[in-house]
């Protein structure tokens, strides 16, 4: 072979290698952009800047919720050197086994890398943090990271405030990438319903890191960074003093208090008893506290006022009086006799017969059974169902049997039985007023939440309408933007039918069943209820509004398994009305004392309703 041919062949071999390299470069550099992304992942570290969560105030600008610094201990395992484990464990208050266990757990956790910071110990106590900060140089590789957590100034209104906790995988999926593992999110209460407003907007800071994850500076002088926007401050309609007094009065009792400003639908107090200190849900032991509360048979985590349905008992008679008039089967002069009851429904001893106003005042079962019967068996309708449907719609227009749309998590609808329910139970066309007579005295299948009770009272106080109850009055100084909180929901009962019922409600307090709730100088209109229930002793129920003219407050009180409405619920409501309207509650010290000290928790072993 000619020698120059051999040279050419060799050079062609060289070129072949060069071409292979160039083809490879085409793939690496031109066609595949995953390497570019990997390069950015290598050096660009996205740091989330968490804004401070919004503060929460009550209606009188009293600070309720603020933020507190907490200290998390993080570790970059690669940088841990010559660690004196004994000293380290002593500072942290753990045993050597704990230490080894923690490290093993860390290594198994998702996304672990020896060069990346990992959470080693959550929420150091302040003394621990101080001890640590002092000796940090002894523990290379360990750092203390500062975050903020919630702090509750008054340790009350736990069910309104709710709590925040770490996001779940589901939250992360739903948020379109806003939340990341380890972020905090509102889990219940306003923390949940107003999460978007309270949390603010996370900022992002891009920093360059080298192969050992050491910071090398800002990326492009920070031109892609975004600042964190602080969470909005929220003003609640809550009256802290009233709320606190309500919780005191409900101590050692189970039940609910809901107070509403009728004109605006603003919630003034919302007590769920038993309650807990919301500060239990922050700090190192939150998990343990949560489990304890979860296991408590009294269900302190259950938000009774918005979720628990109770049979309303006699307070239902107020609404019946209104509906009866609207349906033209009742007028103020309608008179029924009562001889200790009607058919199978009993009644207490009282004068007879009574007209409407008097029947309300003495809460005559017999009278209202007849009213109910005349409504449902109204001959104006062809069928009982039609009459009952009309009755149902009237009741629904007061907000019964449906979720009102309160801005609190976990609202229940209660239960107002529709015709379909009775059709199912008794068969179609096989029921009528007498079949469902217990409804006439607010018993039977009927379930109304305390919130619905208070809302119905507000409707009566407003002579015909309610505004959807809500707890948030203003966000960042501007009124709650929810349009529903400005709409008057008119009931289907004409305003003209209200005065006589209100007169009757005033009589209840002035000379009727709730005489104990009377406060000289304040015109209170109310109604007691004593609700029989399958869980034990009757529930003591009372709802009221005051003053009679231009009402400022509507209130519903339910004390579970406490007996007559007048025994517990009415006095408690009365004390709260006095407090709210006069700013003090010291005119009846003996009564207040008795209510505060009343302990109903050990009278029987029954569990709360539902």
């Amino acid at each position: 072979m000619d020698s120059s041919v051999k040279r050419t062949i060799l050079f062609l071999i060289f070129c072949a290698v060069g071409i292979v390299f160039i083809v490879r470069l085409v793939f690496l550099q031109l066609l595949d952009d995953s390497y570019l992304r990997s390069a950015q992942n290598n050096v660009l570290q996205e740091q989330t800047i968490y804004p401070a969560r919004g503060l929460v105030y009550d209606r009188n600008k009293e600070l309720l919720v603020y933020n507190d610094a907490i200290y998390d201990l993080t570790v970059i395992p690669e940088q841990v050197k010559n660690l004196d484990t004994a000293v380290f464990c002593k500072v942290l208050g753990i045993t050597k086994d704990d230490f080894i266990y923690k490290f093993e757990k860390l290594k198994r956790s998702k996304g672990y890398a020896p060069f990346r910071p990992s959470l080693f110990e959550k929420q150091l106590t302040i003394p621990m943090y101080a001890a640590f900060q002092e000796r940090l140089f002894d523990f290379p590789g360990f750092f203390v990271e500062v975050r903020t957590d919630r702090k509750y100034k008054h340790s009350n209104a736990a069910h309104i405030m709710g709590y925040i906790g770490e996001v779940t995988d589901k939250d992360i999926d739903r948020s379109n990438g806003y939340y990341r593992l380890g972020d905090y999110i509102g889990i219940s209460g306003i923390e949940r319903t107003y999460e978007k407003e309270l949390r603010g907007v996370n900022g992002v800071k891009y920093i360059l890191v080298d192969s050992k994850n050491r910071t090398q500076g800002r990326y492009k002088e920070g031109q892609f960074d975004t600042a964190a926007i602080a969470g909005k401050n929220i003003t609640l309609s809550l009256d802290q003093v009233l709320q606190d007094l309500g919780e005191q009065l409900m101590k050692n009792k189970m039940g609910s208090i809901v107070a509403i400003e009728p004109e605006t639908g603003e919630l003034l107090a919302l007590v769920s008893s038993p309650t807990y200190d919301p500060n239990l849900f922050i700090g190192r032991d939150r998990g343990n506290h949560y489990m304890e509360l979860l296991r408590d048979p009294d269900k302190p985590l259950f938000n009774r006022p918005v979720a628990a349905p109770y049979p309303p008992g006699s307070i239902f008679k107020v609404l019946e009086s209104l509906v009866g008039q609207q349906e033209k089967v009742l007028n103020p002069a309608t008179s029924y006799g009562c001889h200790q009851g009607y058919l199978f429904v009993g009644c207490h001893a009282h004068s007879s017969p009574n007209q409407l106003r008097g029947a309300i005042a003495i809460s005559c079962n017999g009278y209202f059974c007849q009213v109910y019967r005349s409504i449902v068996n109204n001959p104006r309708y062809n069928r009982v169902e039609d009459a009952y449907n009309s009755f149902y719609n009237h009741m629904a227009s007061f907000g019964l049997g449906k979720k009102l749309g309160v801005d609190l998590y976990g609202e229940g609808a209660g239960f107002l039985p529709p015709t379909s329910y009775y059709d199912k139970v008794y068969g179609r066309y096989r029921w009528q007023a007498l079949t469902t007579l217990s409804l006439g005295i607010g018993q039977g299948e009927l379930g109304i939440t305390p919130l619905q009770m208070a809302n119905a009272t507000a409707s009566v106080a407003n002579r015909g309408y309610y505004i959807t109850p809500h707890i948030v009055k203003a966000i960042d100084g501007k009124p709650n933007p929810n349009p529903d909180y400005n709409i008057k929901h008119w009931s289907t009962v004409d305003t003209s039918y209200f005065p006589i019922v209100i007169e009757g409600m005033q009589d209840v307090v002035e000379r009727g069943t709730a005489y104990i709730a009377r406060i000289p100088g304040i015109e209170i209109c109310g109604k007691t209820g004593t609700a029989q229930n399958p869980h034990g002793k009757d529930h003591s129920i009372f709802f009221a509004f005051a003053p009679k003219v231009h009402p400022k407050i509507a209130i519903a009180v339910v004390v579970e398994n406490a007996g007559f409405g007048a025994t517990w619920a009415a006095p408690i409501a009365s004390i709260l009305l006095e407090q709210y309207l006069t700013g003090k509650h010291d005119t009846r010290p003996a009564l207040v004392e008795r209510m505060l000290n009343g302990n109903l928790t050990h009278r029987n072993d029954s569990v709360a309703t539902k």
Partner: protein
Amino acid sequence: MIQSQQNNTPKPASIDWLTLVLYYFFVIAGLLCIYASVYKEDHPFIYDNGMNYGKQLIWIGISSFIGLLILLVDEKFFYVFAYALYGMAIALLIAVIIMGTSFRGSNSWIEIAGFRLQPAEFAKFATALALARFLGGFNTKFSDKKVQLISYGLIFLPMVIILLQNETGTALVFGSFIFMLYREGLPGYFLFIGFMIALMGVLSLLIAPLYLIISIGAIALLMLLFIRRNKQNILIVFGVALAFVFYVSSVNYLFENVMQPHQKSRINVLLGKEVDLKGAGYNVQQSKIAIGSGGLVGKGFLQGTQNKFRFVPEQSTDFIFCTVGEEFGFAGSVGFIVAYLFLLWRVLFIAERQRYKFNRIYGYCVASILFFHFTINIGMTLGILPVIGIPLPFLSYGGSSLLSFTILLFILLRLDANRINELKGSFE
């Protein structure tokens, strides 16, 4: 090599300036890449490890000086002292094994006045000179069996010693002399066999040996169907097939029992049998990321984040091409490859224009060595060849490497510079 000359110092015009320009192009490109790989915005000139840049500058100075000395020396010197230099190199290699310092996992370094030197690097040009002297001898024909055996001996002796030093990559470089031997008369099918041996070696690690042996048998039987089935052909096919079967099995045996774990894992990673982005695969993965993120025109000089923040290990030595790929992109990388091929072509061109066999053989040795380094080094950074730690000539950081390649190339320039004197001499 007998000639009569009065003036033996080359005139500047007789030096192949194009090669010299290419040499300085690569050396300076290398210096810039080393600078880029240690560059930090905060401290442009000082960095805990950034002395590499300054050290390389010193080495460039030393190399240039030695290169000048080589150009000034009598060209007969290399012919006369070829065997002596070879002997010295072998002696040094043995000395290193006995008393060398261990550095980066191999016992191939000796330390002189704070500078670490690797005698294996110098064994390359010494062997090239010895081969040129031996094969370039009057009446030496490569077809002679004895000549072949002595040539192989000259190659294998330093190779084996270097293997003992745990420098597999450098030892493999000596295999590249097959290209020179091809030019000097080794039949072309040896190149093919060499290629087949490499291919079978890889395949035997990828495919279960049993399947490979069955395939070899099947191919042998197929071949018997198509060739004339005389006794000689059958014996050859049988013999070759048997040799491959033996080879395939021994590769597996070597791989499982002789190779060290880090070598095994490097090869496994390359073959895709093992995914280990934190261990052996890390270098290659980061190297690919650095090069791949360069895009069409690169991130610009000193703007490469992967190199700068030290994601690529050994970036200034074996992985220097990453800097080219990241900061100058596809355009820069292709330009670099084309420039390198141009240098190789120029070396072949120079070799072929020599009147003397000694010069020509030496020239082919230079081309072979440069080509082998180029292939293995860039192939490794691009992730298509296993990580064999050999430098990219003229660019990689490292004094021994730069100096030895400079000597290698400048001896050729010196030998080539004489051709004008030769011509002149013949006219005078």
